[in-house]
């Protein structure tokens, strides 16, 4: 756009005029071509403009082309069937009418090629108009197929055109997210979506095979953007919006069947996830997995391999994989051996600092709400969380303390963690083994939650108050963790800042005389004013 703009600035008026005149020119040319076949050769002029450097000209030319060829398609003035070569067409014994159609079909083909090329143009405007134009052609072709087949037997859909568009969209070099989001509009049509899904699958298979499974960040991002925009409706009755309406046997068409959609969707995703992904892509996939992928699959269990692999990775990816696993375990009867052991090992200081903290605790709460868990396991979780709480921020502590309390409530035999009266009242070292990976071996039940006792001295009053609860028997009712899951430090600050009725504010009684003096004088010892 930059060079064009410069030109605009230098001779704004003239260029504007020229654009206008060009547009009028193009429109009049299109009309002339459509009026009589005498002016058929003007189509070359239009195509020439389509290839020009000026983006505005290109856009207007694309519009003109769209108008022209759509009308021609409607009039059936394009050649239908297998197209002979240009020279052959001229030489062969065809009637003038047929020759004209062939000529126009050739121009149409070259126009489509040019537009496809424009899909990789550097300017978004050009790309967009090219895409719109192509989709118009696709719609036109769907209504008036260019193949010469028995349409009562076959379903007409411009598969090739869609495949070509998808291929261009999934660029290997540029991030096409904007264009893809524009493309989403067309994905609302059921048949388009269906064919786009199958073409994506084909394309991914082809490209990844070629690169031999190596990571291709840009390409994979594009694919992911496109795929994440696809959502399959939940009911068959919702399949109403079609680009091409089949005259015969519409109900039998694959694109009109929900199961087929689901199958294609599933195959598309599996085909994508089969290959190695960059780690941030992993996270992105896992974030939307439970929500927008699993429900749309015909056989979600096929995701097990992917999810278990992700769960094994460790760190944030494991945390995210939990969600998908939960869906599988919960709804699809997945039996995962050592699930809790792995969950136990996921508990690290970083869980309080990652972005997905709320989601993790929500899920962990769900997993540990089962009443069939062995006591040692629950105790191990409680103790480990308590130990981790020593390094956690205030917001994290406000989650983890009720969490631990809930564990103790659900499993009353865990009460020994906070209440273990013994006759010989001898102090002992903490027998809990933090480094032990197996919750069964970590001796958590022999320990006590001294950490919570420590947190009673925490600097934030809410945390300290929460920690005070272990001094007395816990109330029966469970705390609702969901309220505190999303709490932020600023919200905590606001609790104090927004207190409307402050009767009297306590003041420092020690007279302040200097900036660095006062309260322990720590700052003054290490820093000076200048």
């Amino acid at each position: 756009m930059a060079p064009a703009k410069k030109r605009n600035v230098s001779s704004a008026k003239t260029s504007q005029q020229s654009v206008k005149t060009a547009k009028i020119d193009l429109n009049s040319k299109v009309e002339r071509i459509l009026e009589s076949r005498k002016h058929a050769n003007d189509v070359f002029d239009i195509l020439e403009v389509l290839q020009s450097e000026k983006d505005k000209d290109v856009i207007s030319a694309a519009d003109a082309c769209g108008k022209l060829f759509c009308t021609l398609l409607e009039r059936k003035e394009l050649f239908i069937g297998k197209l002979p070569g240009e020279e052959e067409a001229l030489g062969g014994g065809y009637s003038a009418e047929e020759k004209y159609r062939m000529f126009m079909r050739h121009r149409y083909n070259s126009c489509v090629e040019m537009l496809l090329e424009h899909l990789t143009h550097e300017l978004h405007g050009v790309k967009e108009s090219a895409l719109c134009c192509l989709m118009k052609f696709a719609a036109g072709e769907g209504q008036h197929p260019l193949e010469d087949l028995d349409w009562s037997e076959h379903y007409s859909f411009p598969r090739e055109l869609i495949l070509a568009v998808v291929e261009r969209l999934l660029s290997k070099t540029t991030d096409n997210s904007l264009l893809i989001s524009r493309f989403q509009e067309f994905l609302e049509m059921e048949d388009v979506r269906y064919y786009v899904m199958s073409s994506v699958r084909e394309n991914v298979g082809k490209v990844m095979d070629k690169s031999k499974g190596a990571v291709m960040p840009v390409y994979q991002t594009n694919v992911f953007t496109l795929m994440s925009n696809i959502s399959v409706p939940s009911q068959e009755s919702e399949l109403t919006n079609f680009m091409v309406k089949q005259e015969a046997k519409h109900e039998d068409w694959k694109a009109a069947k929900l199961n087929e959609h689901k199958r294609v969707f599933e195959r598309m995703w599996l085909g994508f996830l089969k290959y190695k992904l960059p780690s941030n892509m992993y996270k992105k996939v896992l974030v939307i997995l439970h929500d927008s992928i699993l429900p749309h699959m015909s056989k979600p269990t096929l995701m097990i391999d992917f999810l278990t692999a992700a769960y094994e990775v460790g760190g944030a990816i494991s945390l995210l994989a939990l969600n998908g696993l939960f869906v599988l375990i919960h709804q699809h009867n997945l039996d995962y051996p050592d699930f809790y052991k792995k969950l136990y090992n996921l508990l690290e200081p970083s869980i309080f600092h990652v972005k997905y903290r709320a989601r993790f605790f929500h899920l962990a709460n769900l997993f540990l709400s089962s009443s069939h868990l062995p006591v040692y396991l629950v105790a191990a979780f409680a103790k480990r969380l308590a130990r981790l709480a020593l390094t956690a921020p205030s917001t994290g502590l406000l989650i983890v303390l009720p969490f631990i309390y809930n564990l103790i409530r659900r499993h009353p035999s865990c009460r020994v963690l906070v209440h273990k009266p013994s006759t010989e009242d001898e102090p002992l070292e903490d027998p809990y083994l933090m480094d032990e990976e197996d919750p069964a071996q970590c001796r958590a039940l022999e320990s006590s939650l001294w950490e919570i006792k420590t947190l009673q001295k925490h600097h934030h009053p809410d945390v300290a108050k929460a920690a005070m609860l272990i001094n007395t028997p816990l109330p029966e009712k469970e705390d609702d963790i969901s309220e505190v899951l999303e709490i932020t430090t600023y919200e905590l600050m606001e609790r104090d800042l927004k207190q409307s009725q402050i009767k009297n504010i306590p003041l420092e009684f020690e007279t302040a005389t200097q900036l660095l003096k006062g309260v322990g004088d720590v700052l003054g010892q290490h820093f000076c004013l200048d």
Partner: protein
Amino acid sequence: MGKVPKKRNLADKVRKTKTSTEIKNNPFEVKINRKKFDVLGRKTKHDVGLPGVSRSKAINKRKETLLKEYKQKNKSNKLIDKRFGEYDTKMAPEDKILQRFAMERQRVHDKKDVYNLNEEEELTHYGQSLAEMEKFNDIVNSDDESEEKGLLSAELTASHFGGGGLLKKRTSGDQQEEEGSQRAKSRQELIEELIQKSKQEKRERQVQKEEAQELTEKLDQEWKSIQSLMVKKTPKAECDDKPEEKPKLEEYDMMVRELVFEMKAQPSEKMKTPEELAREAREKLQKLEADRLRRMMGEEVGDTAQSLVHMSADDLNDGFVLDKEDQKTLAYQDGKWNIGEKSEDEDEDEEEGESGGEEEEEEEESEAEEGDGGEEEEDDDDEEDEEQEGSSDEEDGHSDLESEQESEDEERKQEAEEASAEPKKILSKEELKAQQEAAKAELPYTFTAPESYSDLKDLLHGHTPDNQRLIVARTQKCNHPSLAVGNKLKLQKLFGFLLEYIGELATRSPPELTTIDKLIPELYSMCQIYPEAACKAMQGILGDAGHSMEEELEVKGHVAFPTLDMLIYLKVTALLFPTSDFRHPVTTPALLYISQALMKSLQDVTSGLVLCCLAVEYVSFSKRFLPELINFLAGTLHLLHTHLSQHIAASYAVVPPFRPSGKCSDLLVLSDSESCKSWSKKSLPLSATQHLDLKNDLDRDHHRLMCLFTCLDLVKRCSLLYKDLMSFTFIFQPIRTLLSKHLSAQELHREILETISSVPVSHSRLVLEKKKPIPLKLLTPKIVEVLDYGKKRGSTREEREKERLKHKYKKEFKGALREIRKDSRFLAREKLNEVMNRDAERKRKVRELFGSLATQEGEWKALKRRKRK
């Protein structure tokens, strides 16, 4: 007289009681109200009634009230008999008299003599005051008259009383002897002569008396002289024997005299209210301002300064002044009069009663003046003073006190100025000019409170830090809330502006931290006066900072360390508000902010260390646990490693934002191990948090070492602070591992490690607090008190009350109606009575008339008959 009425009273009583019992017993008088059924335990008041009695009572009552009113109807004037007890037959006449007398006395005492304590009232006898008569008696007894007493000369009696017959005759004999010469003497002349004579006699008596007095005096004097001679003899003889006793005596004497001459306790000025103080302070400032302006205009100031010189209370204002040399204070020094010594400066006299310390300061100031040092030095002194005083005032940091102390400062300043003005009595022109300049350079004394932040900036722009502080202090004083209505709001705003100003000072490059430092006391004092406003302002700043941090965190996932202004704000918060409160509207959010900053940002070790220092300060009293602080310190220590193999790094957990390995993970590693040797400890400048220009590797290494030193010191403090926490060992485990295994042992490390390892690792098990068992539910019946039986229950209390009142009203209304009816009946009866009486009278009169006429007629007829006969 006293017995008779008593008897009658008794008789009355007897009769009355008799009748009442009679009436009660008389079945015809008693009406028994029939009860439908007996209720056990109910006490009835009205089972027996005496209708006759009550009716007569009612009639009597009406007669006394209603009838009287009726009779007085349409009569405008009436006679009120105010005599006490005139119609009270029950009262004994003696009582009446007594009462009346007492009332009269009271009436006299009412107003005039309320404050007359000893004078009761003038007693009179036939119109003459008894007291005077007594005085007269006294006069008669005096010696003047004593000689005349009993001397009733014939002349006197004659002149007074006109003379007796016999005496007169005798004098007439005399008269005849001197007939020729004294014939003309009239009675008046005689009287004059008499008066003259008596006067002369009087004078003579007086002279005699004086002479006698003189003589006695003379005698006294002579006796005295003899006595002194007699007395002095014995002490002298003793004195030789005991010479050491003399100073002792003198010492006592000295003490006595000193005590005599010592200043007596004088009534001090009354305690001033804060408003008065404020007004005085402002007036003082205004006066100073006027003074300054005048000097700026170039007027001579010597006179005014002179006029302010000490004036004694005995000064008659007549221009008579003792010379300085003459003015000696009476005092003993080493047992001698120190008459010869010079008295102290005049200034000191002014300051009698003030502490010695202040005098010293005074001297300092005057010295500063001598050096012509100008304002700044003086201000410095002032500030030092204030600091000293402030520290002594620590226990009771009252704002009044402080303002008082400030006003004292001002006073001293004023005095100092006067002192400075004094020596320049005669100024040359150059000096005058110089003075003008000085006045110009001097600050104005009154300021209007800034309305906006830019106003404040303009006000403070271009002044030295000390002057800025003075300006703020004076603004505060000129706009004390007790002086005008809107001042409170103005000062509250001023606090916010000042805070903003501080923030701006900190963001300047280079940051003007000394100015901030100077402004701190002002901020503190203002905060003490308006805690709410200060709290609001600080909360606003913290809220904004927290909000922007949150936003940044959402966008980027991590934040930059707070800038210097925020660090300063946090420090100021710690200075103004108590950090040890469990929950405080300002410090709690501030601490949260610190912890969040330590947790989420990773850019600058120096800023982080400043924050750590602040965090340690915040929790130093309360010893509360701040996990973020420990994490950050451990992370900082982690940055010290150079080449760590993976298994060592795995031996302790590094908490985010620090990473086990990465591009910045060896930030604090020294580039050259030799630079340790050239390093010496010094304080880091606060501005290092903003930008660092370290030229070479050595400088950089020194900075690193400085950071390391700070960090280790903080770790040490923390380890001492958190020693009592139960999980101490686990909290400090990463630090311990780092220090013991991966860093070469040094002194500071060893100390920390020792603290860490000295803490007991074993704890007794957790046991829930013992709780009082909840008492069983008791099954005794609940008793509901029913207050009125037989009434509608179940309605609410209000309704019942309303019902009750309604009933009462109805009853009263009926009663009133009944009474009114009875009244009107009574009145009608009375009227009828009246009419009937009137008619009867008329009839009687008419009959009388008829009777008389008939008799007349009869008489006339009889006469006629007789005539006929």
